[in-house]
């Protein structure tokens, strides 16, 4: 049963790597574990965490969502525009826009039967265009007097609001995945769509739901983007879907669908976010000078290792099965 040893590595690999990285940083740099730094990392990566959560569910059904970045950008513009109405206004606008995009994805995949790749590609382009149109090709400043920025820049006690939102949603997501029929449906759909249909579950409804949810979460991420940076940015969001996919895969979720962990995805997100911080600190030490661009290279490498490992496990499992 070598396969299961590797599988256990997957499940906990990201968490272990994260712990190792944090330990490394704590030992090597001053202030690495300072409250400011930790909360700062959490605040910055909150948006990515939300998008990754949605992506996790989509990938578990065996699909993919390339539109999350553009949808977040669009939502940030919508939220910025609605920001004079306060937190509720901006929040509602952003999430509603994201949800709408997610619904479009869901329909394209379940009704028009387009491949998720194509369907979400289309939505990505359309959302990109809509964001630019809505924003008039420029950033849209948010209102600073309505309290909207609180959701992005505020704190509750020592914790940044975005981080609390992320924690709450991940907890909810994990609960849904492990303790509800709907959550198991997600895994069943990805692990065997025909089988799940025969079991009386409804894979189409499940798929529709995860794309809608992914859109809504991207919308929320856009709201945080606008509130946190002070402006709705129609061109931000490029590459978010990659970050999300990488986090999900590194966290151990199978790209082919059917197995995954919400919490491990969070570990993946934090791993990538911490990596960025470590790079910054390393540069600060002056020993080496690694530009931020190294991030993508390292992310790519991590993804490569995980993907090859997954593929090797699959091949070995296949050989044992026959």
């Amino acid at each position: 049963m070598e396969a299961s040893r590797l599988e256990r590595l997957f499940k906990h690999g990201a968490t272990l790597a994260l712990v190792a990285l944090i330990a490394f940083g704590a030992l090597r740099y001053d202030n690495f574990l300072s409250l400011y730094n930790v909360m700062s990392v959490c605040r910055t990566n909150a948006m990515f965490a939300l998008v990754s959560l949605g992506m996790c569910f989509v990938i578990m059904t065996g699909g993919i969502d390339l539109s999350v970045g553009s949808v977040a950008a669009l939502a940030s513009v919508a939220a910025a525009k609605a920001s004079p109405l306060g937190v509720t206004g901006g929040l509602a606008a952003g999430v509603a826009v994201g949800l709408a995009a997610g619904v479009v994805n869901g329909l394209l995949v379940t009704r028009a039967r387009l491949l998720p790749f194509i369907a979400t590609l289309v939505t990505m382009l359309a959302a990109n265009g809509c964001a630019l149109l809505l924003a008039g090709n420029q950033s849209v400043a948010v209102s600073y007097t309505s309290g909207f920025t609180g959701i992005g820049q505020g704190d509750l006690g020592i914790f940044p609001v975005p981080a609390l939102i992320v924690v709450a949603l991940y907890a909810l997501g994990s609960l849904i995945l492990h303790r509800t029929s709907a959550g198991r449906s997600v895994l069943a759909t990805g692990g065997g769509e025909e089988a799940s249909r025969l079991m009386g579950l409804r894979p189409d409804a499940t798929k529709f739901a995860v794309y809608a949810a992914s859109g809504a979460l991207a919308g929320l991420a856009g709201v945080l983007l606008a509130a946190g940076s002070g402006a709705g940015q129609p061109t931000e969001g490029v590459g978010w879907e990659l970050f999300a996919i990488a986090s999900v895969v590194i966290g151990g979720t199978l790209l082919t669908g059917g197995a995954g962990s919400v919490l491990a995805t969070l570990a993946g997100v934090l791993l990538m976010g911490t990596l960025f911080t470590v790079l910054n600190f390393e540069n600060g030490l002056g020993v080496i000078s690694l530009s931020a661009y190294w991030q993508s290279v390292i992310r790519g490498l991590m993804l490569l290792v995980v993907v090859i490992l997954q593929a090797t496990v699959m091949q070995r499992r296949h050989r044992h099965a026959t």
Partner: protein
Amino acid sequence: MTKVSSTLAPTGGRTRGGLAWFSRYGALAAFGVLLVFNIAVTPYFLSLQTLNINITQVCTIIIVAVGMNLVIATGGIDLSVGSLMAISGVLAPMIFLGQVVHIGNPALAVAFAIVIAIGVAGLLGLFNGWLVSRFGIQPIVATLILFIAGRGIAQVLVDGNLQTFSVPQFAWIGQGSLLGIPTQAFVMAAIVAAALWAMRRTRFGRYVLAVGGNERAASMSALPVRRIKLAVYAISGLCAGVAGLVVIAINSASDANQIGLGTELDAIAAVAVGGSSLGGGQARLLGTVLGALTIQLIRYTLLANGVPDAAALVVKAGVIALAVWLQQAQRRT
């Protein structure tokens, strides 16, 4: 044994007229309609300048789309082309500007740079092919790796800085023209012609279609499936390498952050609209060229008539969705 045995399933008859027609000639029809519309409505449409602008913009997409078409024909996809363009576009100036190795003769330096840049892109493409054929990794995932890391590599090489240069021996690729038509059009035409020739007249072309058409049958017919897959991804990389050079030659500037951004999507869209099945087995190269031209023309039509570029994106999205849906619907009959 709940599979329907082959006795029961009816063999595919001729595909139904309407949808089949659309799939074959849809792009051509759309293109024709757009042409007519523009001649009638858009000012200065029938001018050499307009032609040049459109050709310049569409050339790189077509070059990349040719490689993409071959990859898609084997049932795969290549998301890394944009990043490979960036790597190629960053490497070449580094070489002919003497940052990597000093070569006295500028023409020689340029030639060397071109070879290396395209070669590296091709090798990275081979890497993609290796992941797909050796490990059986899904092409989306395999090429996603370089999609993420490739641009980073390019950025690291120049630390994100813009490189401008003034090297006439190189710039002619993007800025020169022959008989009033930009040089890159000839480069594009040469690549399309080479691909057409390969697909029609060589063993390789048949094998590509066979692998994408029915991989199991291809294995049982002793075709070199792994080698074919390696080859198409390498070719896609090479095309991206060439496209990267064209892009930087146009403005004599190389920006690692911008080169090839979004080109993979444009290429995939061109293939889809051009009628080649995204599931593999078909390589309608001329259709792909037409698809790219159609999408470009849509964009230009909107722009020239005052519609913001952003809206063009939405329209492009709609066109792709429609094209793919039509194809799928036709295939299901």
